[in-house]
């Protein structure tokens, strides 16, 4: 845990409950935490002090996560800040296109709400390239695998899925 000390995470989410939840989890893991309730406030915070990582929600009033990220990456210095996305809109029409844009252009990791504290911390530590316990590393891998699987299943057509199911069933026999 010692290495978490000194690392600052900026949590951007419009829901106070989510902000407080993530803050509690991060503080427990030894991080410093800054909170922002929308993209504008988040940019202000970045200007004041460059965080080590940004935990970003997508759908927010005033400035959405995608817009915030577009502005963030315009600045060469800020563009290097790792971003992980925490959203409830990963797979609906409201958030899907934004998420695609973001995962294509930079942040590789996203977490779908509701998130568990352990998954959240594991994902952050992995992104920051920090030492992790064996369990944390495993969790982070699982989260990534889960996301990959979700994406594949979301994009697959029903026919392919049917065939896969048949294949699996045949193997199990």
């Amino acid at each position: 845990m010692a290495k978490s000390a000194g690392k600052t995470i900026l949590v951007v989410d419009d829901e106070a409950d989510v902000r407080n939840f993530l803050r509690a989890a991060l503080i427990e893991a030894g991080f410093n935490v800054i909170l922002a309730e929308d993209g504008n406030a988040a940019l202000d915070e970045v200007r004041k002090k460059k965080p080590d990582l940004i935990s970003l929600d997508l759908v927010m009033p005033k400035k959405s996560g995608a817009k915030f990220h577009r502005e963030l990456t315009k600045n060469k210095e800020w563009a290097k800040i790792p971003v992980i996305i925490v959203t409830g809109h990963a797979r609906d029409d409201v958030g899907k296109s934004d998420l695609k844009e973001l995962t294509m252009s930079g942040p590789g990791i996203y977490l779908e709400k509701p998130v568990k504290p352990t998954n959240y911390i594991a994902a952050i530590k992995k992104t920051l390239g920090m030492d992790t316990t064996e369990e944390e590393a495993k969790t982070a891998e699982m989260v990534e695998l889960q996301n990959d699987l979700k994406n594949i299943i979301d994009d697959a057509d029903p026919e392919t899925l049917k065939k896969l199911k048949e294949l699996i069933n045949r193997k199990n026999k």
Partner: protein
Amino acid sequence: MHDARLNPPRRLKDILADELFEAIPFNLAVIDRDFNVVQANRSFERHFGDWRGKKCYMVYKKLNRPCDDCPSAKVFAEGKVVVAESVGVDHSGQETHYIGHAAPLRRTADGPVEFVLEMTRNLTGARSWQQQYQVLFDRVPCYITVIDQEYRIVRANEAFRENFGDVMDRHCYEVYKRRTSRCPGCPAARTFNDGRVHRSNKIGTGLRGQDIHYAVTTSPLGRTRGPVKHVIEISNDVTAIKKLEHNVVEAERLAAVGQTVAGLAHSIKNILMGIEGGKYIVSLGLKKKDQTMITEGWEMLERNFNKTTTLVKDFLSFSKGRLPVLRMIDPRHPVTEIIELYKEVAGRSGIELRADLPKTVRKAPLDSDGIHTCLTNLVSNAIDACLMGEQKGSEVVVRLTDAGGKLIYEVVDNGSGIDYEIKKKIFTTFFTTKGGGGTGLGLLTTRKIVQEHGGKILVESLKGKGARFRMEFPRKRLMALLKSGNNIDADIKE
């Protein structure tokens, strides 16, 4: 040079005798009792060809024996004029239709008929028009019937007969709808009455008992003034279109169900996130024996339980497919109520809430509960927008105007405004930018109520410059709704 002495002027009788035979614009031929053509004019010769030394049937019909139904034979026998229509063959071998007028010629007034004068007039053009008209009448892809003043069908085209069977002399209402009396709002009755064109949408019953949707146009047959004796009914079969419309509505409904389920899932995910957080903070607090933390976590749990309740309530009220209950009310009333309800809350946040109402306004059929809900949603949105905006001197105005046959409610604020990306989504189920504050059903419910009133809702906004939500209710539609109670089979007035 004219020389009167060599050529004395003829008497009228002589002129007629000399020239009438050629001057008359008919084909003239004289035949004797043996059917020999003994005289013919040039017009006849041009049409039927050479006649000299030939029998009449050879000339008229290019036959070798007398016709079965010879009108001239009748004239010879009865001594009276006979008029008949015939089909012959002209000089070029083409079929020719003509009407013939056969008159007896006698040498003395009471003598026997020695010759028959046949005057024929070519009808080929008219007959071919008639045939074309008949084909058009039968083959045009819509139902055509002509009815008399007793609503009996006197003519019906092929398309109509195919779908409705043998219909001649039966009452139109019996044939179209299997009724025993005239249909309410009969457009033909209106045409009999005022001699004008009327339209209506109806559902009839076909031969096999199937529903036939049709759009009927009735117009008087003929263009003369005076009482209408016959009405022509032209109907377009729109059954296939109705079926497609139904399919589209069904598809939209299914899509809406999908969207709703996805939205519901999202709302629940958000609540679960709050519960997850509350649970975590409570357990951290317990572990650390930190009372503040426990309280914080517990409050999070409570808030999210409450959110579940609100969500379920909003969800149920949205899904309730209630038709608006229309009553004649003063359209200003709901506005006054809302202002009273929200004035204090708004004032506490430094927002001025005021009404802008006309001094007088005609009553209108509205569902006051529905309008109340709409205004509540829009005003609470406007107040939230002012709270989010950075401006000082925020205000929300609820305006009512009654112009151009429309009742218009507007809720205008100078709050945070809506940016383009969000504007596209505001009428999406469960879409909310209010974080924990909304379920995302408010505007959707509002739009639903407005549409149920036959109105529409529009939004204008620029980010940072406030928003204007506008609900428009055409008075005509409100009245129609009040009268018919959402009747799909309603007549379309001219």
